[in-house]
């Protein structure tokens, strides 16, 4: 067997067949074989590489366009205005239990309606409590005003146009007083993921309207000591009225 594949044997085969058609056919077969190997090992992978490069180029072009557009968009934004807007929305729906904001809202509603706030206390609670960023956490309060339903209704009307956002969950009117159950909302910090390649879009008309409305609700906070009303306050939950903020 070894002799079959020795150099001498190969030479012998070469000189035997070099002038025959078999040699030419052998060389032709080698050419075809080489070509096929090249085709499958190099050309076809190159094709797929070319397609993937093209795809990557397309993606990169889109990404660059998005990043540049985002840069232009952000450059066009007034940072001062953005800070103001962010301040308003944070005041409307705070990330923590905003006791100061709650007291200011109550004082403002009271001042606007001329309805004196009764003594009240705010329970601080567990300040390390984990707050969900998605669902609102409620802070509940209850007041008993020395007024009828109409007076309470005025208070509710005003409170609904003041930040932070509050809701009245129940009203109970007795002979001379009206109990109002309120709730304020707060939530945890949402997870804001900055994706440079995601195209930023400007605020929708609905969002702009909401922001304008919230701006209107951001009233001037009166000094709490100035709050006076026609009706005498009735104490519900103990505790002194807090000092002005």
């Amino acid at each position, binding site marked *: 067997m070894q002799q079959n594949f020795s150099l001498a044997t190969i030479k012998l085969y070469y000189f035997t067949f070099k002038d025959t058609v078999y040699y030419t056919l052998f060389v032709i077969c080698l*050419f075809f074989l080489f070509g096929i190997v090249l085709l499958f090992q190099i050309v076809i992978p190159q094709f797929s590489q070319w397609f993937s490069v093209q795809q990557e180029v397309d993606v990169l072009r889109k990404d660059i366009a998005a990043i540049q557009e985002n*840069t232009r968009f952000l450059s066009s934004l007034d940072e001062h205005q953005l800070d103001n807007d962010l301040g308003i929305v944070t005041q409307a729906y705070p990330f923590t239990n905003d006791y100061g904001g709650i007291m200011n809202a109550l004082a403002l509603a009271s001042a606007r309606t001329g309805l004196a706030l009764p003594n009240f206390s705010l329970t601080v609670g567990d300040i390390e409590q984990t707050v969900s960023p998605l669902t609102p956490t409620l802070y509940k309060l209850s007041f008993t005003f020395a007024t009828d339903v109409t007076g309470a209704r005025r208070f*509710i009307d005003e409170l609904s146009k003041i930040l932070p956002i509050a809701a009245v969950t129940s009203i109970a009117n007795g002979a001379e007083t009206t109990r109002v159950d309120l709730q304020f909302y707060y939530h945890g910090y949402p997870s804001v993921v900055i994706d440079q390649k995601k195209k930023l879009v400007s605020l929708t008309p609905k*969002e702009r309207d909401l922001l304008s409305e919230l701006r209107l609700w951001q009233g001037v906070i009166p000094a709490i000591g100035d709050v006076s009303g026609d009706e005498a306050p009735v104490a519900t939950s103990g505790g002194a009225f807090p000092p002005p903020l």
Partner: protein
Amino acid sequence: MSADINLSIRKKQEKGFITSSQVHKLRLVALIFLFGVAVLSAGLFLIIAASPLPQLREEEQRASETLKSQQSKFGKYLLLREQLSAIQVLLNTRPDLRKTIEVVFAIIPQGLQVSGIEISEKHISMGVSTASLDAISSFFQSIQDRAVQKVVPTSISTSSIGYSASTGEYSFTITFD
């Protein structure tokens, strides 16, 4: 052995197997095929090498660096949008008793006094008193109309109507659930 050295016979056999012109054609085809594959490979290599991918990567890097300088603005804007959508949801879902109060007071006719009222999101209860039976009748008619329009809850119950001889007034409690 004699067959191996007899060139005349071998040539005859070769002629029968494949002609010389066919061999030439085949060789030409093989060469063209090999050349074509080589040219294609070289061409693809050049196309891939000349692709703008590295420049685009650099451009993306530069654009990204530029945008990073506005990172804080970016975060604030995203937070603003998040907050606005959360507020929108909150405003849409928060209970609004103002409408309920409006509806309740709209159905109370002249001459009927509300002695006490309790309103929550899904429950309304009120005590009423009047000296006029017509007012009571009008009140019930009004409630019936509103219930048909689904403006007030359709589950309505009333206590027995009491009569006080000292005041001459009828009184009862009505509850909507």
